[in-house]
């Protein structure tokens, strides 16, 4: 991370003002392996300027300047991009519940991308009073879910059902194709039978969710109650509780939940298990809640031993099949990334990150019409300065 402005590198932009860094706290996950808990530290404004030496002239940069505003809450930012012009041009991480508002806006448009990320449930395989150590019980949980309804009710359609831990994007089609196990269908009868054969529940199931996934947690809880005739208690973790939950998970100590819903992404689509499957199941995985899976470790070592891309895809596919067969997590959905974007900004979203080299603004954009003042247009269309 870059602590201070300067012409330090060769990227499309140069950091000329401010900082966005994280303070980190080490948590050992396995031997010398570790993860870092992160606390954000951002200046109110961060400014990037186009790098005139950037070599990839076809890519960009097409913008002279990018200003990150850290002085606004996401809700304030959404108001400003939807109802006015000039204060905010691009808001990331728009919740699905706000998508229709953006679509109805006169000033903003909704841009979406099939992101390489998953929303899944970490299953505590060592929970007392529940048979979650038993594969039949974990399969029952997965069979009890109607993912199409979850996508409809909690994501307004802006997500794709998840089968295994490889998100369904165009680039992961091959990873998911050859010999792929079918994902878990919505099959309440089989779910009930498997749950009962695993011993059933001696107490309520505690379902926790990271903030932002509360609606999804409520839908999942309702489906589990209905499908398995199970008592489900839902809790939503605030920012501090999430930090603590991450710590306890990485330390392998009990967190007071049986299933924890969280999202996790990968920085590329080439080999999803490196970040996704490893995080949930691997020996060093920061979200592993249960014993080490020796077969998974063997399959992961085989993946690591491949230098050919095709062989890596096949090895990744084997890992995904294993994780699916073992029901190593509660597979929910792959949420799309949603952006609210000013109508005169040509923004090209990335599936794994936020990059602005190929973003441009049209001639009618406020920054190309006026230079010295920051114009603001209210919802009635009047422009003020």
């Amino acid at each position: 991370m870059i602590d201070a402005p300067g012409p330090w590198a060769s990227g499309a932009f140069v950091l000329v003002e401010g900082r966005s860094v994280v303070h980190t706290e080490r948590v050992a996950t396995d031997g010398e392996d570790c993860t870092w808990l992160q606390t954000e530290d951002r200046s109110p404004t961060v400014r990037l300027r186009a790098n005139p030496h950037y070599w990839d002239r076809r890519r960009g940069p097409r913008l002279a300047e990018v200003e990150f505003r850290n002085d606004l809450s996401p809700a304030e930012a959404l108001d400003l991009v939807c109802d006015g012009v000039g204060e905010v041009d691009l808001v990331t991480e728009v919740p699905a519940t706000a998508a229709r508002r953006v679509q109805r806006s006169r000033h903003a448009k909704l841009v979406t991308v099939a992101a390489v990320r998953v929303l899944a449930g970490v299953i505590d395989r060592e929970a007392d009073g529940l048979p979650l150590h038993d594969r039949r019980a974990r399969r029952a949980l997965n069979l009890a879910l109607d993912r199409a309804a979850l996508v409809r009710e909690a994501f307004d359609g802006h997500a794709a059902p998840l089968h295994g831990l490889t998100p369904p994007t165009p680039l992961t089609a091959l990873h998911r194709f050859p010999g792929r196990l079918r994902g878990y269908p919505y099959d309440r009868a089989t779910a009930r039978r498997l749950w009962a054969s695993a011993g059933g529940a001696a107490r309520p199931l505690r379902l926790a969710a990271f903030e932002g996934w509360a609606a999804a947690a409520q839908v999942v809880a309702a489906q589990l109650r209905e499908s398995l005739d199970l008592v489900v208690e839902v809790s939503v973790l605030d920012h501090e509780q999430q930090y603590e939950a991450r710590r306890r998970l990485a330390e392998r100590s009990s967190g007071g939940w049986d299933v924890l819903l969280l999202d996790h992404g990968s920085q590329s689509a080439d080999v999803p298990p490196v970040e996704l499957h490893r995080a949930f199941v691997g020996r060093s995985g920061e979200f592993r809640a249960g014993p080490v899976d020796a077969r998974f470790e063997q399959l992961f070592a085989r993946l690591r031993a491949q230098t050919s891309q095709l062989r890596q895809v096949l090895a990744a596919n084997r890992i995904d099949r294993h994780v699916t067969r073992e029901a190593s997590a509660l597979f929910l959905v792959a949420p799309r990334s949603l952006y609210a974007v000013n109508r005169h900004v040509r923004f090209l979203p990335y599936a794994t990150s936020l990059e602005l080299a190929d973003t441009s603004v049209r001639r009618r954009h406020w920054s190309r019409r006026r230079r010295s003042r920051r114009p603001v247009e209210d919802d009635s269309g009047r422009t003020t300065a």
Partner: protein
Amino acid sequence: MRAIRLRTAPRGTVRVVDPHPLNWLYLTYNTVEEPVRVTRGGKIRPAAMRRFRWVDRQTLELHFRPERFADGTALDARSFQRAVTEQLRWQAPHPPGTQFNLDRRSRVEVVDDRTARLHLPEVDGLVLGKLRATHIMTERFWRDLGFGYAQGRPGEGHW
């Protein structure tokens, strides 16, 4: 000869609100290059390097294009060697975790200005993805800032 399509000069400003917790990383990706980057769809492809090839199962050869940093100094194979050397000083430099670590027994051989060879102590087919976290920086950066450690702080968890 292939025609080069020139882009117009950079124009305009956008104001962004990005609540994503990886904003610190996105700023790095927008201002720094690594040997590889990730396309819009999510595929790893060469960035600061022009191309690569496996010489054998434990040697990755990287070819760099003639390029300059934003301060006008040259980016070459030695810049990559420096980036790897700096990274290997630390046990866990990357905030996401040790999954992005290069094996600390790795070493870089500079073949010429444009060519470097990354020698791995054992086969690691995931190394291309790990190079996404190998930030190539100017000499001035390493001298004046580093990832914290030129100013007396450790580089652990701060790359």
